[in-house]
């Protein structure tokens, strides 16, 4: 039963990798693109580099992972806080909603260098960029979840001596939880992009930084290796949130 779920995507990925391997190692890709062979690495070469330079790559991945975890965490806290505040007061929601939407329209590529000028090469500009990207999906999906609260259940609870806080805890939070998880999963997928942009704007460490350096030195195979690790981080984070959701939201 389980195999029916993970086998098809695995086979597809293996098939595409095989195709790439053939096309690259036979020199076909390089010929078509009119490039030197070393600029078009085959999957086997990328795996080789990943193994040889594993210390360097994982060291940098650690930095990026910390940035992602911190930025995502900040977005989660602020997104939930804003959604709850919006739910609590109509005035606050009407006043604040345009700002939330505006936060998503800020071009990250533009704002990233400014943040580096302000906050330096440390973790702060990356953290802010990642949380800026993650904030919107978390806030909007949480709000959406809160809107699904059944007004009749709320009245039932009021009639059965439920305080405002009790109703929030026992009715509104569980109703909103699936929305929170949806937002968190989308945020996890885009957090990695934020980290790379942040590091490109100015950094001395991290996978984005490594990619930029390797690009300058035409070390294409190691660039691919870094990209591979980046997507591994995104997929793991996404899967982790999915597992958490299944453990918590058991009534669905």
């Amino acid at each position, binding site marked *: 039963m389980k195999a029916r779920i993970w086998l098809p995507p695995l086979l597809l990925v293996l098939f595409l990798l095989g195709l790439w391997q053939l096309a690259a190692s036979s020199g076909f890709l390089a010929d078509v693109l009119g490039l030197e062979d070393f600029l078009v690495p085959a999957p086997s070469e990328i795996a080789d580099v990943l193994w040889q330079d594993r210390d360097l790559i994982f060291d940098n991945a650690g930095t990026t992972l910390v940035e992602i975890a911190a930025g995502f965490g900040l977005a989660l806290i602020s997104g939930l806080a804003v959604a709850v505040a919006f739910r609590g007061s109509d005035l606050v929601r009407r006043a604040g909603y345009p700002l939330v939407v505006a936060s998503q329209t800020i071009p990250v590529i533009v704002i990233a260098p400014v943040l580096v000028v302000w906050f330096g090469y440390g973790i702060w500009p990356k953290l802010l960029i990642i949380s800026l990207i993650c904030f919107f999906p978390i806030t909007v999906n949480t709000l959406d979840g809160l809107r699904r609260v059944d007004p009749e259940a709320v009245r*039932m*609870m009021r009639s059965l001596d439920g305080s405002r806080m009790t109703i929030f805890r026992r009715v509104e939070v*569980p109703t909103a939880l699936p929305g929170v998880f949806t937002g968190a999963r989308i945020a996890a997928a885009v957090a990695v992009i934020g980290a790379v942009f942040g590091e490109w704007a100015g950094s001395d460490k991290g996978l984005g930084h490594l990619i930029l350096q390797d690009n300058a030195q035409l070390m294409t195979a190691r660039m691919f290796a870094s990209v591979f690790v980046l997507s591994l981080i995104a997929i793991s984070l996404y899967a982790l949130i999915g597992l958490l959701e299944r453990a918590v939201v058991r009534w669905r």
Partner: protein
Amino acid sequence: MTATVSARGLTHRFGPLDVLGGVDLEIEAGALLALAGPSGSGKSTLLEITGGLREQSGGLVEVNGSADAAGRLRGCAWMPQRDCLLPWYSALDNASLALVNQGKSRREARKSAAERFEHFGLEGFETARPDELSGGMRQRVAFIRTLLSAKPVLLLDEPLAALDAITRAELQEWLTPVLRESGATVLLVTHDVEEAIYLADRVTVLSPRPGRSIATIDGMRGSPGRRDEVVSSPAFNRKREELLGLLRSDQARGAAR
């Protein structure tokens, strides 16, 4: 544990829409009054106003001497038409909601609810999730949840309307001693004529919108014998005809307007 409910000249409007056009009713302590009337006669609104979940536009409602909404909310337990069981809680935790809300520990609350589960034929379903229960069982869990609040007044909004005819008849029979033992004063909204007469001490008929109380007749609550026998007796038939006549006459009046 007993309380009276009364309404005088109660009116309510939603924006331009007149929903209640002057309702008078009186429930003695421990009595059960059924509200019968065509759909759209504002029965549910009347129930929510009585329970302090809504402010009326005009007139007076009193529960146990309290005329303000907060006081009425304190005195009443409202049971909506849909059972409103929370899917993230087990049947037992749903039933013990009111007790937990009132500050009892979860263990104590579960213990009290579990006793009712035994009584009400729900034994073995304590840890079941609401969607694993049948319609009749869900409704019984909702009844336990409402009863355990120990409020002096129960407001029941068509509690059996969603059930099939056989289950509904069973629950009517089950409900009779349950409500009697609770000692609560009950306001029951229903559009089922038989249910109104069988369960209620008295039945008040509402007109079509805007709902006004147009007549009150005696019900047959506490008639000895099984439900089947009661509802097929000549006395019950006469009551049924009387109530149907009242509902029909006024519906005709509503349509002619």
